[in-house]
């Protein structure tokens, strides 16, 4: 069966009534579809259909298939059995003791099922006939890919901070030898550094200003650098290149180059 058929009027239907049925179940999607096809042959409103006639047509179809030794799927046979039952209900006088559904009720339900299936088929056809996205109407072709700015922000807790500092300090604990070896700033180093810098000391400068980078934080290194720099200063004073003064005990030691006076 072609895939693109959804209007059942397009289907090749077997002809009506007493004409020989074209027994070909491949064309049907199950017994209900077959019944619907047969019922359309009555060419009346589905609501006015003769369910009895329909049941007889269906049973004739199944009989024909059996004679031709065509194997019918089980659901066709189940439907045949049910329709035979329906037929007997419709034809036999109502048994007063029977509290089951009447033949009319069962027939009405079958009519409802057929009508509902046809309604769904019509609806499916109407749905597919609608304007469709990508066929009749379109989305913007040049999606302006929205700029996704991924802002990354970093965070840390006070604990992280403290642990980090503790880690650094611990590291120092573990490297005593290294620290000691490099913890001495020699007077020669200080003198060389001071000679290079004193030319800039036009005005009074705190001795601490002349301490070398890298010797300011570690207390041992700082002490060593301070002592050597002070000694170097005295050496330069002796050479008459530097003036030195201190206002009082423990006050900052100030120095400047001599020719600046």
């Amino acid at each position, binding site marked *: *069966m072609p*895939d*693109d*058929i*959804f209007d059942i009027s397009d289907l090749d239907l077997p002809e009506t009534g007493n004409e020989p049925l074209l027994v070909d179940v491949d064309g049907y*999607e*199950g*017994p*209900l*579809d077959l*019944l619907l096809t047969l019922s359309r042959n009555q060419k009346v409103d589905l609501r006015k259909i003769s369910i009895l006639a329909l049941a007889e047509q269906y049973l004739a179809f199944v009989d024909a298939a059996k004679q031709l030794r065509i194997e019918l799927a089980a*659901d066709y046979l189940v439907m045949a059995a049910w329709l035979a039952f329906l037929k007997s209900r419709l034809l036999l006088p109502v048994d007063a003791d029977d509290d*089951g*559904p*009447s033949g009319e*009720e*069962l027939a*009405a*339900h079958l009519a*409802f*099922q057929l*009508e*509902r*299936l046809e*309604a*769904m*088929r*019509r*609806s*499916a056809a*109407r*749905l*597919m006939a*609608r*304007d*469709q*996205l*990508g*066929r*009749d*109407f*379109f*989305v*913007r*072709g040049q*999606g*302006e890919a*929205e700029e996704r700015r991924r802002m990354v922000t970093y965070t840390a807790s006070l604990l992280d901070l403290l642990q980090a500092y503790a880690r650094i300090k611990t590291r120092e604990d573990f490297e005593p030898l290294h620290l000691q070896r490099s913890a001495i700033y020699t007077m020669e180093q200080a003198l060389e550094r001071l000679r290079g810098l004193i030319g800039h000391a036009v005005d009074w400068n705190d001795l601490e200003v002349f301490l070398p980078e890298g010797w300011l934080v570690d207390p041992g290194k700082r002490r060593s650098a301070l002592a050597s720099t002070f000694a170097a200063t005295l050496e330069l004073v002796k050479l008459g290149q530097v003036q030195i003064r201190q206002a009082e005990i423990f006050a900052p030691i100030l120095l400047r180059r001599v020719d600046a006076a």
Partner: protein
Amino acid sequence: MQPEPLPDSLFDAPPLAEQERMVEAILFAVPEPMNEAAISNRLPMGCDAKAALEVLRGRYQGRGVQLVKVGEAWAFRTAPDLGFLLSRETVETRKLSRAAIETLAIIAYHQPVTRAEIEEIRGVSVSRGTVDQLIELDWVKLGRRKMTPGRPVTLVVTPHFLDHFGLESARDLPGIKELREAGLLDNRPMPGSLDEPVEEGDDEDQDEMFDWKEG
């Protein structure tokens, strides 16, 4: 959070015309329909997305591009009558089998619907491939389980289904009102079967689904 009153200007929403421009820019940029809440989120504080959307929809009325509502979401789409100009843009879709199309229609009109109900309506079993195909197309998805014995899963149509068929909601399906009035969307039990009490529940469930979907 901030006890001091902030200067008014911080909360002054831009004028509606400006809000309309903003909504226009946002919806032009994104291919997928965007719901009002998402649009609101993009707008500066104090904006009225709903009002801006309505003005904007009016502005595009009759244009070559239109502002359409898809479920709760909004999107720009070309006017359907101009599709012939855009045939080269056509997205090739696999042809659906008759079974798939019917199954889709049944799901759309009867949702939420169980597989057993689809089979009852079509009178044949539904092959797994058919439902898979519809799910793959993002036209159908699993809905809530039904509160009937066995708690079967239900199938419902997706917002993408609505978008594809240009429907504002499942209520706008062609002819759905007439079908409902004719009782053809009822889940009528076979006389004599023991389903009756469940039926009531099903109908309620269905209404609820629609409300939930649109809520």
